[in-house]
């Protein structure tokens, strides 16, 4: 510390204002701890609100509306050709969606007495953070919570300049609707944004390195999405890489392995995200990183430095906002001396494509890897009354239970609304519900939620 530094003394300093950071800060404040958030952008919300979950869902909603209008032709309703005006669309996203939520967060912070210090923060030692920018100061804390999140990974080996090569952040600005879009990466970001652009009118080509979309996700769940994507996209190249990109004459020429060179108007690189753990001054503390650059934490979100906690993407997979939010609350409660722990068994994952895919807990493959004896039930939505009424019989609900106890271990759902339906599954897993409990709980008819009950029932009948 230098003489003359402006010093702020607090109980808790949170570094990073995303979902993990603001959840931690709000909970700290509720527990009577004087708390500040240090955030370079001087606003709460993080990647989730400004360049991730929220704007992408706004655009996916638009895509769904366009998709439904298209489907309506099947039952005799023709809206004609959609006319898309980008300016009002971008304005709606920026003001009515993101802006509204951003103002909401700011007012919550104010109400709870959490100050947001704008500026990049770096640790000076285990008790202080130096903040640069317009409000330079040193924040001295009793405890700090690192919540610096993650950023999109650049494509290794494809050093390219030019704004025609976009990452997810740039793509969510929708600079235009490219006629031909190349999406590199068949994970959830590539698929979600690929579908958005396809719905807006782009001819989308998708390249995925592994031999299937959504690597690591249960194949039964991926299948309906793969079928739909084949219709929506111009081409899907699996087990393939992009060997080179070259900007030429207002377009990008891509060398896709096994294909002739092809020209695209824009390229979206969506090959994953990586934790932001560099340039934070963590080397001046006792915080240890894993060899993959993740901050190592225990189930109370404590790092190896007794004064410093960490939550969210910077601590590793699954890099999901809702996991970060729960961790943030755990960290806050542990700092306040409460017996909290991140011992959650089910962190739901949702891919907001059409159809949606959601899962949580232990899926079939992981159960087998873990050497557990399980029973698996699959309920296809062809037998669902509700699915028929919305013209979507392509869904599936999958249930994994422990063979001996009947306890629900995992659930996977593919179909419209899967992201909402998975909430029941998360509750079931977290509260150690058995298949019998699910089967005898009345689910409203006709709804898509019946799928889980049906799957559970089929297991009971099988075993009697």
């Amino acid at each position, binding site marked *: 510390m230098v003489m003359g530094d402006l010093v702020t003394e607090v109980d808790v300093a949170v570094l990073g204002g995303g979902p993990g950071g603001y959840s931690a800060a709000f909970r700290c404040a509720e527990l009577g701890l004087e708390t500040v958030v240090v955030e370079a952008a001087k606003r709460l919300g993080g990647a989730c609100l400004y360049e991730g979950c929220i704007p992408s869902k706004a655009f996916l909603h638009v895509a769904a509306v366009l998709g439904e209008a298209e489907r309506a032709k099947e039952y005799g309703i023709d809206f004609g050709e959609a006319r898309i005006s980008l300016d009002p669309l971008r304005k709606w996203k920026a003001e009515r969606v993101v802006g509204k939520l951003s103002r909401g967060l700011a007012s919550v912070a104010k109400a709870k007495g959490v100050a947001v210090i704008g500026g990049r923060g770096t640790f000076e030692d285990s008790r202080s953070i130096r903040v640069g920018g317009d409000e330079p100061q040193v924040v001295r804390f009793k405890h700090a919570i690192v919540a610096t999140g993650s950023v999109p990974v650049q494509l290794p080996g494809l050093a390219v300049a030019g704004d025609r090569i976009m990452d997810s952040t740039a793509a969510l600005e929708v600079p235009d609707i490219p006629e031909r879009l190349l999406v590199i990466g068949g994970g959830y970001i590539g698929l979600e944004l690929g579908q958005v652009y396809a719905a807006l009118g782009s001819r989308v080509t998708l390249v995925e390195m592994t031999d299937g979309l959504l690597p690591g996700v249960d194949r039964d769940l991926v299948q309906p999405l793969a079928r739909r994507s084949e219709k929506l996209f111009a081409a899907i190249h699996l087990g393939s890489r992009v060997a080179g990109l070259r900007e030429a004459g207002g377009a990008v020429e891509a060398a896709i392995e096994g294909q002739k060179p092809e020209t695209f108007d824009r390229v979206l690189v969506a090959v994953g995200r990586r934790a932001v753990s560099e340039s934070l001054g963590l080397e001046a503390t006792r915080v240890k990183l894993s060899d993959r650059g993740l901050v190592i934490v225990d189930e109370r979100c404590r790092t190896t430095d007794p004064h410093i906690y960490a939550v969210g993407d910077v601590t590793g997979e699954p890099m999901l906002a809702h996991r970060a939010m729960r961790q943030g609350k755990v960290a806050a409660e542990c700092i306040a001396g409460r017996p909290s722990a991140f*011992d959650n068994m089910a962190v739901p994952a949702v891919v907001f494509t059409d159809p949606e895919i959601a899962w949580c807990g232990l899926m079939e493959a992981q159960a087998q890897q*873990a*050497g557990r004896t399980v029973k698996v039930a699959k309920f296809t939505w062809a037998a669902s009354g509700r699915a028929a009424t919305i013209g979507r019989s392509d869904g599936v609900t999958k249930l994994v239970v*422990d063979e001996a106890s*009947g*306890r629900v271990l995992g659930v996977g759902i593919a179909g419209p609304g899967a992201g909402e339906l998975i909430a029941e599954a998360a509750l079931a897993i977290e509260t150690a519900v058995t298949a019998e409990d699910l089967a005898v709980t009345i689910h409203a008819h006709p709804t898509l939620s019946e799928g889980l009950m049906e799957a559970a029932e089929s297991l009971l009948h*099988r075993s009697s």
Partner: protein
Amino acid sequence: MSRTFALPDLGEGLVEAEIRNVLVREGDLVKEDSPLLEVETDKAQVEIPSPFSGRVEKIHVQPGQTVKVGQPLVSFGDAGDAAAPAATAPGASTSAPAAAPVRAVPQAPRTGGGPVAATPATRRLAREIGVEIQSVRGTGPGGRVTDDDVRGASGKPTGERPAAPAAAPVGPAKPLAVVGLEPPPLPKFEQWGPVERQPLSHLRRTIAERMALSASLIPHVTHFDRADITDLNAMVTRSFEAAKQHGIVLTLTSFLLKAAALALKEHPQFNASLDPGAGELVLKHYCHLGIAVATERGLIVPVIRDVDRKPVLDVARELAALAQRVRDGKATLDDLRGGSFTVTNIGALGGTGAIPIINYPEVAILGVARGREEPVVRNGQIVPRTILPLTLTFDHRVADGADGARFAQAIIRRLEAPEALFAEW
């Protein structure tokens, strides 16, 4: 049709045991009643025999592991010769074997690895009261751990583990105040030099808990006295060979036990337990004496029953057999429970006296050091006599100093007139 054998109820409020040895291997064919496992409880090392004949399909435990009552130990497959007992197999005749475990084992405890079957609120409760939820046996559907299970588990390690299940039903009288201190955190010893941490054995932990409980709960008072055992010694020496002919190793300890038992008949408040919850003294109309035995594993206190009613030669015979069983780790649970008063003889290892701690929930304990020949003044003459130092520790809530002195005298009187020990039964 697979059958699983779980740790049976061991009685006496025992809820867990440590596996010492697994005596069979997976794939072995075992006969009913042949030994399966050796376990150590708070009280004894016991052999658990197989309840079935059959092939050992899976062994769920390993040596050193602590298991709760009801936790599976061994699963048996079908042995061609053994008919499955009908009672255990409601689904035995159906063609769906997968169904049977769900129905037959409604309280299936967790089988390694997986997440704990408990709601987040229950898990928080466990952290709050310091219970290792992984080790709690769930009584809910599918082995789910309930709040009550967690609370039930918390009682055990923290203290209230009475040797006898005389556990307090709260009576109309006023309960006494609860005693108990949280141990303060230890300093960081590493700052002064290297250290090593060793987990306590099951027996050591039990001794530690029981001694801490006794020392913190009971206001101990200790009375010192000396007995002239010259004549007793002479008698033991004289009779030693004759007794040996009858297979009896005559020792001073047998006489001590007998003397204590007879003195207890005169001073029944020392053969009792205080029930603070009820505000009552529980007087015992039996006289089962515990005798402290040092073993390689630690202190164990086997019990000889009805010492007041047995001839001293029988006491001697029983004592020798019992001590041997204890040292061999072969004592049964019944050998080790139900004591009403304890005697500890530290004479073999020297020393001039020791202040023993009461074996909770008893009221008193008698310690004796080594008897030594000393110069004693008698009728103005210095004569060599064999003197035995005695220490009587008792619960001051139950008895006062004068009572202790009288009780000690009642023991000494008998030791100094040994013929009476033979005469009185």
